[in-house]
């Protein structure tokens, strides 16, 4: 196994598109790193540079101790699972999995043992003689995983491997990938734009935006203390509410005429500064109308079963609150209270956390 280290990695495509602009992070040996970000932010490009499928315009990529910038994909000792599976259509499932081992001159008996072992783990034993086109999407996905694990590589790379599956299968495969990665202990880098996948799979979460890293940390850290407004808005579903406010000098902000207490120490000594007050829908509580509460004019309600999302406006700004079903009226105006510790303040221009 090996760690993966990126140092100031850049990618400029022909025609001058700067897809990746100076990304640095380290994935510890055996850990599961998820790259997440909106479409076009450069996740795939970064992953493909690690795989060796795309040249590196600047910076270095290390796998273990070795700088791999100039090393062929075949010699990087990695395996990759593609979004469209990229199975070899003219080969049986068995041959698909055996291909990489045969290319490396592995003895026949060992190939057979490893392929059968992988097929057993992934539950594709009955299909070993079939061609990929005779498999369902989920089975193809498993074969693609099998092709990656038989090689026992140093690093697994995944590029949105679940996005072609239906919602139920996606959840199921997500759990399996996690379990497999845990049991094999192979360093993994996983690209997705799905923040639920990102949160659930990762040991280390890297949020990217416009070719740069916004924040790196454990999913909990990023969820609890997003470093930028972008990360705050990107992680969590339903998304965080952002309400314009003004800093005061008494550990609180003003939302309109109302004083709302915020987490201690935020933006001390800069009274009068306009800020954005971020509050997650589940951190808002329905309370009796009081001076420190925020009034939500209800527009409509979404039912989620155990909980409901109440959508409305606070001082004309769209906001959402998540409550247990039946715990709040669904019409009129709600008074909402928030724990100071559950508030986040961001500078409107830079988007940085205060």
């Amino acid at each position, binding site marked *: 196994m090996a760690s993966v280290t990126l140092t100031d990695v850049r990618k400029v495509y022909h025609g001058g598109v700067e897809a990746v602009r100076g990304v640095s992070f380290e994935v510890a040996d055996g850990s599961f790193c998820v790259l997440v970000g909106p479409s076009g932010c450069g996740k795939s490009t970064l992953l493909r540079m690690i*795989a*060796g*499928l795309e040249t590196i315009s600047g910076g270095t990529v290390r796998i273990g101790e070795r700088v791999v910038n100039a090393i*062929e*994909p*075949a010699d990087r000792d*990695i*395996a*990759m699972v*593609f*979004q*469209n599976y*990229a*199975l*070899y*259509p*003219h*080969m049986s499932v068995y041959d698909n999995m055996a*291909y*990489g081992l045969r*290319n*490396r001159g592995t003895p026949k008996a060992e190939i057979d043992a490893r392929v059968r072992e992988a097929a057993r783990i992934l539950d594709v034993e009955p299909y070993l003689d079939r*061609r990929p*086109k005779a498999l369902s999407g989920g089975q193809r996905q498993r074969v693609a995983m099998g*092709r990656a694990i038989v*090689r026992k590589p140093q690093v697994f790379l995944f590029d949105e491997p679940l996005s072609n599956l239906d919602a139920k299968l996606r959840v199921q495969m997500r759990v399996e990938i996690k379990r497999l990665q845990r049991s094999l202990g192979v360093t993994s880098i996983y690209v997705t734009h799905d923040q639920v996948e990102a949160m659930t799979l990762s040991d280390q979460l890297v949020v990217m935006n416009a070719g740069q890293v916004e924040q790196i940390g454990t999913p909990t850290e990023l969820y609890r203390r997003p470093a930028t407004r972008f990360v705050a808005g990107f992680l969590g579903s339903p998304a965080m509410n952002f309400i314009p406010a003004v800093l005061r000098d008494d550990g609180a902000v003003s939302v309109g005429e109302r004083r709302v207490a915020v987490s201690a120490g935020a933006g001390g000594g800069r009274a009068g500064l306009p800020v954005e007050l971020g509050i997650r829908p589940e951190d808002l509580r329905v309370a009796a109308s009081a001076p420190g509460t925020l009034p939500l004019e209800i527009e409509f309600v979404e039912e989620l079963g155990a909980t409901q999302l109440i959508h409305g406006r606070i001082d004309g700004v769209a906001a959402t609150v998540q409550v247990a079903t039946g715990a709040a009226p669904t019409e009129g105006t709600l008074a909402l209270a928030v724990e100071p510790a559950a508030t986040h303040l961001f500078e409107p221009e830079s988007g940085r956390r205060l």
Partner: protein
Amino acid sequence: MEKRAVFGNRALPYALLAPQIAITLIFFYWPAAQAVRQSFLVEDAFGLSTEFVWFENYIHLFTDPGYYRTLWTTVVFSTAVTVMSLSVALLLAVMADREIKGATGYRTLLIWPYAVAPAVAGVLWIFMLDPSLGIIAQGLRRLGIDWNPRLNGTHAMIQVVLASSWKQISYNFLFFLAGLQAIPKSVIEAAAIDGARPWRRFWTIILPLLSPTTFFLVVVNIVYAFFETFGTIDAMTGGGPAKATETLVYKVYADGRLGGDLGGSAAQSVILMAIVIGLTAIQFRFIERKVTY
């Protein structure tokens, strides 16, 4: 879903089909029937009398060592043309596929030879390969090869193979390029990560995935080499020297038109027809099964 046009007037569909049917009948079935009839007849040298001889023309043909020699020449020629035009086209297509950005201009250039008439292609190559004038011949002479297709049968064969293949390369190229572009890029990338070097990728991934295209082109090229190279051969060598470049189709012309043996020539035509029908049948069978994986 069934798609059918409904005509109010029952005669109209027949009227619309009539021209096509008439053309097929007049220009294909009628001559074909004529050829079959002719192949059972023997005509004297002056065309004054004809005699019905059953299969005598065929027996004559199959007992003639010259016919087998021509058959062998045709096999050698067709194989050489098919292999040469397919492999060069594939090589060019692989190169174009890699650098697809510049390929529009490249593609246009490569398709040009296809628009050149066979006889013109022959003349073009005659100029280049002419023993006294041609630049290629001069180059060969400098290398110590006494290039003389007018006297040397092998040289003549090489000459017609070159000219005939050259014409077909552009056609094959387009099909190969389309085939290559249809292979998902990620499959090639997966193979690269799986440790296959470019050469191995070509043999184990690209070529197998191209096999439907290749099969189609093999049949097309054999048919081409058999039947459509007449103009090239006629312009370059006239079947010579000493019949070294005489293919089956050329022999039909040489025996019938030049030799005046209409019956024997017709019998040869009928055999060629059978070959075409056979090749077409093979092709349809495989297209139906799609030669897929």
